[in-house]
């Protein structure tokens, strides 16, 4: 019974914790511009994150080593350092976008300017990183994030022509008003949003934080293979909601308020309130995850003590990194940069950085010295190889596409 509860809780928090500001914004933008014609990318991306999250979780459970440990150990200090810089830059950018997302969600609820919320949100996030237990962060924000199911309810309530949605989803080509350049650019962005590297830093480090052992592999897998795809369904529901309400009237999403609009149209104030709660939970939870991920990757590269399973004083350098990252994120946002723009760039640069993270995981998950009998099977390796190629293609295409399409215009 207790075991069942643990599994259910894990799955629920995996669903609620799946969506972050990158998924929210990118899916809403894509829905409003491309309808469901890019839904396949979400499906491909979600399967990809499942494959690699399972691998990194398995490595963490069997060997006790989190992802960035492996990066330096396999790639050596020089390539590892270049990797660290790139990964940290992307994760910091994502962290900044998440803090901005929290501020935007609070602005939508109160009409108090987002810039005034930024320091409040930043300090609150830091306090959570400083004081709150790891599993509590995961559970509270994961469960609150389930509020985003309201998007699925809204889509259902809007009574769409399901056949039409399916027709869009099954014809992977740009609609008349868009071209292949922007279509490909947003395909890469969606892929980056679904597979963000921080997710595996966080997932694997979380496994070490919670002292996973090989006995926990089944629970970990159920979280990944049930929770993530259902979380991915929320992404699709967000895209569908903007496809139904905004695409037909020519509205292209460029604010968080527009993301919430279809829910208000479909379900009124109660739905809107739930959606805003979902925005808050998803961005706040992801802000904690990305903030921790910055600390995890730096500490693991240098071998410092990290983690929330020890007192802050025992992981002083790790906590210093968390503090400085939060200050940096707040400072960047206070330059009045638009958090939605930060988000859009963060998902594209995530796509660029993907191979840096996923290649070492794939190699180590095959090393019997680490994994013993738990090395990758044929399925994991087959999928892992396919995704390695996909991730390389997305990574190399991202910057040229960004330049050619002027970031999707």
């Amino acid at each position: 019974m207790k075991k069942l509860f643990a599994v259910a809780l894990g799955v629920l928090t995996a669903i609620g914790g799946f969506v972050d500001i990158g998924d929210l914004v990118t899916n809403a933008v894509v829905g409003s511009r491309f309808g469901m014609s890019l839904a396949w990318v979400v499906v491909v991306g979600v399967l990809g994150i499942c494959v690699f999250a399972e691998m990194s979780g398995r490595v963490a459970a069997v060997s006790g080593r989190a992802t960035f440990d492996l990066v330096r150990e396999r790639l050596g200090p020089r390539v590892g350092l270049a990797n660290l810089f790139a990964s940290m830059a992307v994760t910091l950018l994502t962290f900044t976008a998440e803090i901005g997302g929290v501020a935007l969600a609070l602005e939508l609820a109160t009409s108090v300017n987002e810039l005034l919320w930024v320091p409040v949100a930043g300090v609150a996030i830091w306090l959570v990183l400083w004081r709150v237990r790891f599993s509590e962060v995961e559970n509270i924000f994961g469960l609150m994030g389930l509020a985003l199911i309201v998007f699925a309810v809204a889509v259902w309530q809007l009574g769409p022509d399901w056949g039409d949605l399916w027709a869009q989803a099954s014809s992977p080509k740009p609609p008349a008003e868009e071209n292949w350049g922007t279509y490909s650019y947003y395909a890469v962005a969606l892929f980056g949003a679904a597979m963000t590297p921080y997710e595996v830093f966080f997932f694997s480090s979380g496994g070490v934080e919670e002292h996973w052992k090989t006995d926990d592999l089944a629970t970990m897998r159920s979280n990944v293979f049930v929770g993530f795809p259902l979380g991915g369904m929320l992404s699709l529901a967000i895209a569908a909601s903007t496809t139904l309400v905004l695409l037909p009237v020519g509205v292209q999403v460029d604010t968080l308020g527009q993301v919430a609009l279809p829910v208000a149209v479909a379900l009124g104030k109660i739905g809107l309130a739930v959606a805003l709660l979902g925005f808050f939970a998803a961005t706040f939870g992801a802000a904690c995850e990305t903030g921790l991920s910055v600390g995890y990757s730096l500490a693991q590269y240098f071998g410092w003590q990290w983690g929330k399973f020890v007192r802050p004083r025992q992981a002083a350098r790790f906590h210093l990194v968390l503090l400085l990252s939060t200050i940096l994120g707040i400072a960047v946002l206070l330059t009045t940069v638009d958090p939605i723009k930060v988000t859009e760039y963060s998902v594209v640069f995530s796509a660029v950085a993907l191979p840096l993270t996923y290649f070492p995981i794939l190699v180590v998950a095959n090393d019997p010295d680490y994994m013993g009998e738990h090395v990758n099977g044929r399925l994991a390796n087959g999928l892992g190889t396919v995704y390695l190629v996909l991730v390389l293609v997305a990574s190399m295409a991202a910057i040229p596409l960004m330049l050619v399409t002027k970031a999707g215009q």
Partner: protein
Amino acid sequence: MSPSEAAVTHRISDLLGASVAARDGREIGHVNDLRLAPGQAVRGVHVELVVEGLIVSDRHAGSMLGYDRRAEQGPWLVRAVVRRLHRNARYLPWSAVDDMAWTDRRITVDADKLMPL
């Protein structure tokens, strides 16, 4: 705890990447890794680790990522690429090392003793 003043110490990074040449001066490649084997003496609870040989690769193509150790380690694509990059990698027992110039990072060896990995 610390080694006696007389003992000559080095860092393993001085050896990694050092150039390897045959007695006739022919360049063979670079030290890619060092194989360590348990020695006779015991240090603490662990037997001491002695340098048993060198893995020499003809190019600076990075680490072999462990793919030199086992025939079957997957995934196939990565194994094939790494093996291809390091197809000329050889093992050389330490006994075949004639001379080690630490400052020049250059090792002279008996090239006849090179063996496949």
